[in-house]
Structures are given as structure tokens and as C-alpha cells.
């Protein structure tokens, strides 16, 4: 009979998570297993995610894939899974626990540092920049903001991060935030949008004000790809969300079959812009 794999992610409605889901579905089809995919509305809702994990366990799935919003909070349930002999695979970000057999993930700190390097290069190593991020407390939000800001601090003394603001990943709110940052800092050189919704908001805000500020985004999606094609956005960091989803399911199936797994499956990240967008390696990880 078919394996039943339950994926509990950090989100559901956003494009990034839908791309992860697409990868998982692809693996499910190839490996002939059934997969469910769920996540809370916002990355703040740690307890909702715990409830989802509990419900998934009650279903007695063959394996679980889990992207923890807060790994400590989930420990008791993960132990329950272990006790029940249900293998757990972590994805997107690590779980501080030895229960997950492997983790399919992106190094967000390093990815954001790459964005900082690209930003510095594009604005000529000096001037003011700002960050519009999605979430002040979620792991990805913290890692990307820290990764970017710390890299700038360490490596580029002539660049100043004048503002870090959070728009909850909501395109409209991020648009308004971007406009206020641009209007408050007329000499701003660049803005980093730390996830898809933020990045689209930044591009939108700059367009509405007719600003030529350098924009670096994160993740992909049709709007961001179009912004890069149109030259509104200089480029963006992409993870490999489809790969994350795919590897998670594949690893779960391997675990079920008793095959060995590496401790970490690094799904990688890339900087892409107009010039390399068509490269097969890049095009493969971008989602529309």
C-alpha cells in the first residue's frame, strides 16, 4: 500500500510555500506516495503549527516532514512521533533536535549575506540602504535581516543601513512601507526585500514613486521575475523551494525504505538577474 506523508510547513498561501508544495507533489507523483501539505496563516502562529502537527500524528502517517517555526516548542510531539516509529524529516530550517533524520534546507544567513555583497557591488560600496522584511520574529526573517545587516556592517563600512521595517510579507503594506522609506530618505541607494511579498512591495513602491533605487529581492514568482526583466529590480536571491519540497519527500521515502540519509541536504541558493535568468541551472529553481 501507498506511503502517506504529512508535510507541516511554516506557511501555506504564499508562493514560496506553494513552490515547496509543488516540489513535494512532484516527488509524490514520481515515487507513488500520497502527500498532504499544511501550514499556518502567519509565521507567528507557533501554536497553530503544533496543533497541525498533533492532528497529523493522530492520522498515523507513514512519515512526517516538518518545517519548525520554533523547534523547541515541537519537541514533545516529535518525541511522540519517534516513539510511534514515524520517521521525521526537517525542511526549510533546522530542528534543534536529533529526531529528524535529515534536513533539507537553505542557509538563509549566507543567502542574505550574498544579497548584501551584490547590493554593495551595485551601489558602488557606499551610501544608504534599507531593508523591508516580512517578519520580525520568525527564523527566516531574523536570519535574512541579520545576514544582510551584519555582512554590511562587517564588510562595507561606507554603507549604512538606515531602516529595517517589517510588512508581514503583505505586498500592499510593503509597498506603503517602501514609499515612506524612500520619501524619508531621498538619498537612499538601495533596498533589500527579504522575501517574495516584501520584494514585490519594494518594487511596487519604487515604481509608484518613479524611484531608480537599486532593489534586490528574495525568492521568485512571476511578479519578481517580471520586475527583474523590466529592470525595476536589479536581481534577487533564490532558494530552491521546489527542490526543498522534492528532497523532503524523497528523503522521507528513503527513510521508510531503510536507506541511509546525510545529516543535511543543502538545497542551495543563487543570485539571479537579467543576465543569468535563462541559465538552465537558475531557471530550474525559479517558480512562476
Amino acid at each position, binding site marked *: 500500500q501507498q506511503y502517506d506523508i504529512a508535510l507541516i510547513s511554516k506557511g501555506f*498561501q*504564499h*508562493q514560496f510555500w*506553494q513552490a515547496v508544495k509543488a516540489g513535494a507533489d512532484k516527488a509524490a507523483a514520481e515515487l507513488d506516495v500520497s502527500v498532504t501539505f499544511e501550514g499556518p*496563516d502567519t509565521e507567528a502562529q507557533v501554536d497553530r503549527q503544533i496543533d497541525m502537527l498533533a492532528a497529523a500524528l493522530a492520522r498515523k502517517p507513514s512519515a512526517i516532514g516538518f518545517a519548525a517555526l520554533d523547534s523547541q516548542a515541537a519537541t514533545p510531539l516529535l518525541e511522540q512521533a519517534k516513539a510511534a516509529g514515524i520517521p521525521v524529516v526537517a525542511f526549510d530550517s533546522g530542528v534543534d533536535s536529533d529526531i529528524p533524520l535529515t534536513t533539507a534546507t537553505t542557509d538563509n544567513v549566507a543567502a542574505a549575506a550574498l544579497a548584501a555583497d551584490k547590493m554593495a557591488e551595485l551601489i558602488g560600496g557606499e551610501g544608504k540602504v534599507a531593508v523591508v522584511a516580512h517578519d*520580525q520574529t520568525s527564523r527566516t526573517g531574523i536570519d535574512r535581516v541579520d545576514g544582510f545587516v551584519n555582512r554590511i556592517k562587517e564588510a562595507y563600512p561606507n554603507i549604512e543601513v*538606515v*531602516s*529595517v*521595517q*517589517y510588512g508581514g510579507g*503583505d*505586498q*500592499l503594506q510593503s*509597498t*506603503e*512601507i517602501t*514609499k*515612506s*522609506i524612500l*520619501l*524619508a530618505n*531621498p538619498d537612499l541607494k538601495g533596498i533589500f526585500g527579504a522575501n517574495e511579498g516584501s520584494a*514585490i512591495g519594494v518594487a*511596487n513602491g519604487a515604481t*509608484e*514613486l518613479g524611484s531608480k533605487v537599486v532593489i534586490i529581492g528574495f525568492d521568485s*514568482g*512571476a*511578479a519578481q521575475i*517580471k520586475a527583474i526583466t523590466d529592470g525595476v529590480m536589479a536581481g534577487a536571491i533564490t532558494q530552491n523551494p521546489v527542490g526543498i519540497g522534492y528532497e523532503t519527500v524523497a528523503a522521507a521515502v528513503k527513510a521508510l525504505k531503510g536507506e541511509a540519509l546525510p545529516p543535511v541536504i543543502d538545497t542551495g541558493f543563487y543570485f539571479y538577474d537579467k543576465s543569468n535568468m535563462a541559465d538552465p541551472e537558475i531557471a530550474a529553481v525559479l517558480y*512562476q
Partner: protein
Amino acid sequence: MDSISTETKPGLIAGIRTSGAFHKLLAFSGLIALLVVFSLASPNFMQTQNVLAILQATSVNGVLAIAATLVIITGGIDLSVGTLMTFCAVIAGVILTFLGLPLPLGVLGAILAGTAAGLVSGTIIAKLKVPPFIATLGMMLILKGLSLVISGTRPIYFNDTPGFTQIAQGSLIGSIIPALPVPNGVLILFLVAAVISFILGKTALGRYTFALGSNEEAVRLSGVNVDRWKIAVYALAGSVCGVAGLLIASRLNSAQPALGQGYELDAIAAVVIGGTSLSGGRGTVLGTLIGALIISVLANGLRILSVAQEWQTVVTGCIIILAVYADILRRRNL
């Protein structure tokens, strides 16, 4: 006592109670205080571009708040305004992008989708007697889910409908008076405000809106078909949400199916800050506009001042309470 108060009162735009309208004009003071403080604190605040940015930022929430005002005056509440807006945007996406039909059909479709959803909410409330809170909470969830289902949980882009972004982002006024590049989104907000003000003040629908909120049982005892009018109010509110859906889709050049939840709170807050009581029977569109502006000015001003975000939240909370308190004090001393 009645002969004293027979001084003629000019019929102000804002609606049914002229003294109410007068109050509202004074309520500008809270808004003006904010404007003055921010102007003094930052030279960037009062620039044309920033003022336009504030107005533009008010447009979506303002239109939603006007929809909420209608329902709140009847003594009800509408939690579905945010996700209904998204639903309408998605419908526009289906019509324009999936089906490739011409722009006017998309506009019409979005507004009709809003009207239809409002009809459903209104019918559930009026005919099944489900409390508005539950009926619109249910609709909020249903519409949220349907938006995701219909769009395939993907944003729908309007790249094939070139005129679409003009709805909110173009500037009709700017093309006539280049010095005044007021975006169409803002124009539409004021247009919606004027139309709804007019309906509230001058038509039977408006009269029954106030009457329902004032004493529904009395209206029923007067032989009025209460259900029909209540449904009509929700339908009208729904079509206003359709306009909001077009505005946000045009600004984002896409229908974002995941957006919308949480917007209802901002909309209702604008209504209440604007002096409309949640118990119904009174309220003005002008007050709601001011409430919506207070919210956007606050957000914009604090960002312009680069206040740390966690403190922005604290300050916003305090100022909302203070603004309403100041309004209460003013009315008491009138």
C-alpha cells in the same frame, strides 16, 4: 425648546444629521494635530509626493471602511470585507487573464461578484437570522478559501490587460492639471465616498440603513420589509468591496489570493475612529474617511521618522485611543 432650534440648517453632504456632519468637520482637528506634529518633526512629511503617498495608502482601506460603515450603521458588522476584496480581485483576474475578456467586463465582474457575495451575507443575516458577526465570519473564511481555489493558490497577473494598472495608478487629474498628479485610486476613493454619502443622505436605502440600526423592531412594526432593505445594504457594501478589489489588484497589478484577512480590523477601526458607533443608527462617510486618514497618516509619519517598528505599534495604539478620547472631550464640551 423647539422654537429655539428651528434655525435653518444647511444640508451638508455627509448625511442624515446635520449636527453630526458639523461634529465631523471638527473631528478633522485630531487629524490636523497629527499632520502638524509630523510636519514639524520631519521636513519630508509635507512634500507633495508624500501627501500623495498617504492618500494612495488610504485608498484601499478607505473604500473598505466605507463598505464597513454601511453595515455598521445598520447595527451589524462585516468581517468579510478584506477577503471579499480579494475574492473580487481574483474574479477580475479570471475574467481578464484566464478568459482574456476586455477590461470593462473585468471591472463589472469584480463589482458584481462583490454584490453577489453581499447578497449572500445579507440573506443569511436577514432570512436565517444568523448574527452578522457569525455570518460574515463564515463568509470571510469561505471567500478566503474560494479565492485560493479559484486562483489555484497563485497570484493572477494582469500583464495582458495593459490598462488595468491605470485604474489605481494612473492619474486622470494629473493628465489635465500636471501639477496635481493625484492617482486615480484616490479619485475613486473620493468618488465612492461621495456616492455612498449621497445614498445615505438622500435615498430610501440610506434612510432605512439608519432606521435599521436605530430600532429594527420599530421599522418592522412600521410595516417596512426589513429583510429586503437589510439585504440591499449588505449587497451595496459588497459592491463597494468589489471596487476595493479592483483598486488593490490594480496597485499590485495582480490578484493576490492570500491577501485580505486582517484588513477588516483596519477598516472597522477607521469607521469607529471616525465616530460611528458599533451599536448602529449613526455614522457618516466623512467621519470614516477621516478615520482612515488618521490610520494612514500615523503609519506613514512614524515610518518617515524611522521609529523602530515595535515602538511604532505602541505609539499607534496610544494615539488611536487619544484621538478618540480627544474627540469625545470635544463633543462633551460642545
